[in-house]
């Protein structure tokens, strides 16, 4: 019983990285219709930036949780203005290809700059111990990651459902043409929303910095799992992205615990099952293509 609870927390903590990043992916896809292949690379950039800031300026983890997403927001805005905006009238395919090229570029740039061996990162002392809850001991950091990302997801949820910006974003996700016809300037929100999605992926990277290996390649398997998450949750569904993110984290950790040989494949088996039974994903709407 304890074991199961332990794995559950661990799985949800692992899932929070996917949930945060997939949330960013879903918001970007919703408003721009762009599937951002570079999301994994941005996650990597988040972790690398945190490590570099710590090393050069002594920016600690807590500060990095704020500074890095802001930096990546700016990066995202530039990216959108310089590249994505030129392709937005074309098939989504081209943006996918562009962001793929960007991934190659970013990964090899980081590799050249910081090598392949990985950057060091010291875990903040406050988070390094274990929490004792009844008879269960949980790593403090995992509990923190879990609570923090649930809070961020909730904040985004409130932003989307309780504010005017959120209303516009959701409306343009649902029906861009109609929203525009109602006199809402959807275009005004495209750039900041892209930056926001990028910032969320970067935030996931910062959270990963203290307990994952920070290498240029850390995003390359991440993006694939992220795509599985998005397919499971339903592309374009914001709730689906978050739920599927946590679900995939659970599947991953329980898979590692009970079927280590299959641990990396179970996620894709889950994905295949979802496609078979609900092609649009768990929370997606049927697409008329």
């Amino acid at each position: 019983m304890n074991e199961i609870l332990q794995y559950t927390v661990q799985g949800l903590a692992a899932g929070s990285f996917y949930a945060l990043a997939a949330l960013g992916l879903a918001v970007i896809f919703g408003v721009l219709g762009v599937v951002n292949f570079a999301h994994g690379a941005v996650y990597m950039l988040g972790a690398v930036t945190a490590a570099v800031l710590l090393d050069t300026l002594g920016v600690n983890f807590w500060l990095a949780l704020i500074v890095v997403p802001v930096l990546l927001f700016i990066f995202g805005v530039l990216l959108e203005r310089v590249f994505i905006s030129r392709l937005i009238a074309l098939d989504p395919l081209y943006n996918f290809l562009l962001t793929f090229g960007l991934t190659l570029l970013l990964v090899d740039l980081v590799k050249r700059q910081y090598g392949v061996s990985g950057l060091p990162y010291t875990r903040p002392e406050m988070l390094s111990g274990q929490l004792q809850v009844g008879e269960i001991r949980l790593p403090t950091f995992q509990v923190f990651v879990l609570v923090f990302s649930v809070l961020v997801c909730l904040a985004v949820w409130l932003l989307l459902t309780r504010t005017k910006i959120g209303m516009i974003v959701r409306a343009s996700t649902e029906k861009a043409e109609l929203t525009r016809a109602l006199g809402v300037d959807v275009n005004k929100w495209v750039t900041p929303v892209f930056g926001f999605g990028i910032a969320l992926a970067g935030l996931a990277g910062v959270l990963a910095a203290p307990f994952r290996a920070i290498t240029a390649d850390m995003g390359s398997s991440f993006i694939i799992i992220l795509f599985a998450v998005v397919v499971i949750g339903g592309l374009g569904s914001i709730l689906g992205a978050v739920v599927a993110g946590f679900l995939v984290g659970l599947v991953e950790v329980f898979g590692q615990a009970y079927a280590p040989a299959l641990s990396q494949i179970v996620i894709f088996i889950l994905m295949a099952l979802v496609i078979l039974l609900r092609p649009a994903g768990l929370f997606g709407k049927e697409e008329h293509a």
Partner: protein
Amino acid sequence: MSTPVDTADTTVERSPDQPAGFLGRSARRWGLLGLGLVVAVALPWFVYPPVAIDIICWALFAVALDLLLGYAGLLSFGHAAFWGGSAYVAGLVSIELGLPFPVAALVGALFAMALALPIGLLSAKRSGIYFAMVTLAFAQMLFFIVNQWRGLTGGENGLQSVPVNFFGIEAVEDEAFYFYYAALPIIVAGMWFAWRVVHSPFGRVLVATRDNPARARALGYDVERYRVAVFVISAGLAGLAGGLFAISHGFVSLQEVAWQTSGKVVLITVLGGIGTLWGGIIGAAIIVLLEDYLATSGFDGIGIITGSIFILIVLLFRRGVWGTFSDLVLHRGRRRTDEPGRRRRGGVRPVPYRRRSRSIPDRSR
């Protein structure tokens, strides 16, 4: 993907048999074909023979992908599964059974087709960007299986010392130069097959399902079945290329099933020109030679170059090298409309990207 209700430019106009602006159609075609064959035969005299083999293998791989991307409008981002899956099977068959290499490559290709059927059936439910993600995820599943199944595949070490068997003819078995000439007919046959598929009624229906799935469906074509069929054919050709590639190298590495390989073949196809078949060959030559050059010059950030090329192509030359050449020289002044990724909707011309229109894609339909 957008579902155009009607388009001003019909399928017939976009068919490959359009009248030419430069020479006669058939003269031009035979001329190009002859030139292509001459270049192919002369290639190992001008480039290092193993590099020449790489070029023709990647060329067939790219042509196989273009069959899917250019003519069915489906971007597979998991084609490494078929190239690499076949590479492993062809390698194992060569090691265990000592079959002649064309037979081994064929066995690999058949395996790739068998693998493609279930993946295709599951993926064809989706199109556009979803198709890309789903194929990518399935390919990654194969990657993990190959990585995990060490006893059979060697895991991270890959398959070592794959022999080249060619009916005991030592020159071919030992020297890349002669191997090239033994492999070339197989590659050419694969390309000829792709060409036949494109220029068959089946190919025409494919283009119709690409341009207007709703109309194709209304005409009674089972769009999903056509997609699965072309997916399997494409996988078979990719597998043929992958098997030859693995045998020529004498080993199979995990790299062959990695997603970076899927990305590389997409890059080659897009660089050459989507929907042109010739483009894949040109793109393969450019990328393989470039990588060879960068590797020998000691530059260790190939992704910086290839990534930048990708970005530039997508931003500036979406028709690719061959597409642009064909527009400028072969079809002077003709407005080509066979760019599969072009968003066409309700007969309205797509907004030229120079206008930087911020039109937001409407996926609600």
